[in-house]
């Protein structure tokens, strides 16, 4: 895949003495939606955290736009457009919706076209426009997830990584958010999704990776993976 925007090679990371990632590799193609699926504790979230630098990798490389960004601090990666919407939203609960979005557009690159991005966020999520003066902690779960995505979009991402979008969301809201992601992908945004809801993830993605025990188990187009008996048994409950 020569048109890979993000290329992760043999990444190793862990927490203290506990190594979680044992040389995981994957790529994210430009303007495509790539999914990482796998069982609980397989290392999906850890992979994203190590890629963006929230966790220091102990081995391997992260190539972004052909540049080796493995050792950059997280804020520098975000400023380059490698953006993570973290698991559990991690909003600034005491700050207003508008302030959360403003913080999303903090980097020099993102702040240049701040107004354009804000406009786009409010078009995608009109609810956020209505609640711009409200404190983020007082939003409903669905609105909080919208805000988390919108805040990520304010960073002017070249690649948007979303960790566990579906966590604690009602099916209607979840469906709506997936539609939004599809829209963004069709608009040319590169997206990497980590998702428990494998059915939904497969329905949406262009390419999927199956992660097991901190390594890559297999990868392929989602339709092909969905036909593999061991995947059907382990992740799709069929």
């Amino acid at each position, binding site marked *: 895949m020569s048109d890979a925007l993000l290329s992760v090679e043999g990444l190793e990371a862990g927490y203290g003495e506990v190594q979680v990632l044992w040389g995981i590799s994957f790529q994210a193609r430009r303007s495509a939606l790539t999914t990482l699926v796998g069982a609980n504790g397989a290392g999906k979230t850890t992979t994203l955290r190590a890629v*963006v630098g*929230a966790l220091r990798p102990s081995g391997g490389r992260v190539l972004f736009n052909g540049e080796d960004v493995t050792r950059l*601090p*997280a*804020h*520098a990666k*975000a*400023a380059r457009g490698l*953006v*993570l919407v*973290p698991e559990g939203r*991690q*909003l*600034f*609960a*005491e*700050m207003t919706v508008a*302030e959360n979005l*403003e*913080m*999303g557009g*903090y*980097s020099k690159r*993102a*702040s240049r076209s701040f107004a354009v991005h804000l406009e786009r966020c409010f078009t995608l999520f009109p609810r956020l426009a209505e609640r711009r003066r409200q404190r983020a902690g*007082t939003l409903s779960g669905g609105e909080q997830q919208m805000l988390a995505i919108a*805040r990520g979009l304010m*960073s002017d991402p070249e690649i948007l990584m979303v960790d566990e979008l579906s966590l604690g969301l009602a099916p209607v809201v979840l469906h709506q958010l997936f539609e939004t992601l599809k829209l963004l992908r069709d608009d040319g945004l590169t997206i990497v999704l980590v998702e428990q809801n494998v059915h939904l993830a497969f329905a949406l993605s262009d390419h999927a990776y199956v992660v097991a025990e901190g390594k890559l188990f297999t990868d392929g187009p989602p339709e092909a993976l969905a036909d593999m008996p061991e995947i059907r048994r382990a992740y799709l409950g069929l």
Partner: protein
Amino acid sequence: MSLFGIIASIIDGVLVGSVYGLAAMGLTLIWGVMDVVNLTHGSMIVAGMFALYLLTSVLGITPYATLLPVLVGGFLVGLALYWIAVHRMIGRAPLMSLLSTFSVNLVLIGLGTAVWGTVLFNVPVSFPGVTWQRYTFPGTHLLAAALTAVIAACLYVFLYRTRLGKAIRAVAGNRQAAELMGIPTTRVLALAFALGVALAGVSGMLIATLFPFTLLSGDAYQLKSFVVIVLGGLGNPTGALLGGIALGLLEGLVTPFIPVSWTLVIEFALFVTVLIAFPRGVFALRRS
């Protein structure tokens, strides 16, 4: 004592208390942003006092013109302190930063005592007061309270209206998320710490225009700062100002009736009571 006397005493207490509030704002800002209890706070207050003394008596600058140099100097000292004593303690057990700032405080006070001893200093500041009935409010008290109000307003505008100030609040709220949004959080922490120290320095400078001081005065004002931030709610700069005013009000209320040496006893009785009755602070914002 007449009713007017008591009211005058309370008003004067509020004026002085607002300056305590300013000192506490520095302490609570640092605590709120990085969960560090800055035990160099007292020595930074004293540094502000001595800066006033040295700048006025040695360089001959008028007292209130020292405010800006103290603010800038405090900021730079704060940056240095952050990198020396605080940065490596961020995210560790609270005891680590307590010990490291405590040791720096000991070193600074030790050095200061070696140079100046513990004699009483007094910076003569004259500013016309305001007379009401038979009572005159000292001009220094009025001016200190006015300057405090201006500085507190500036801090509020900075934290709530500017990008960098909002970034400080974002880091206070969720450092990891702030980092993921492209905010260089380490720099923001250093900035917040420096700001807290600058506030301590300026409050020390203003206190020194009100009362005589020694090199060891910092402890008492540091303790007052703790009472104030407990009143105002930990990590809440606006609450700290209100807490300071409340403490001043209390001091003004009791001084006509009991010997001054009892004020600290009453203040700390209040401290304990508030901790038990309002663990989140009397002036903490009501949260739904």
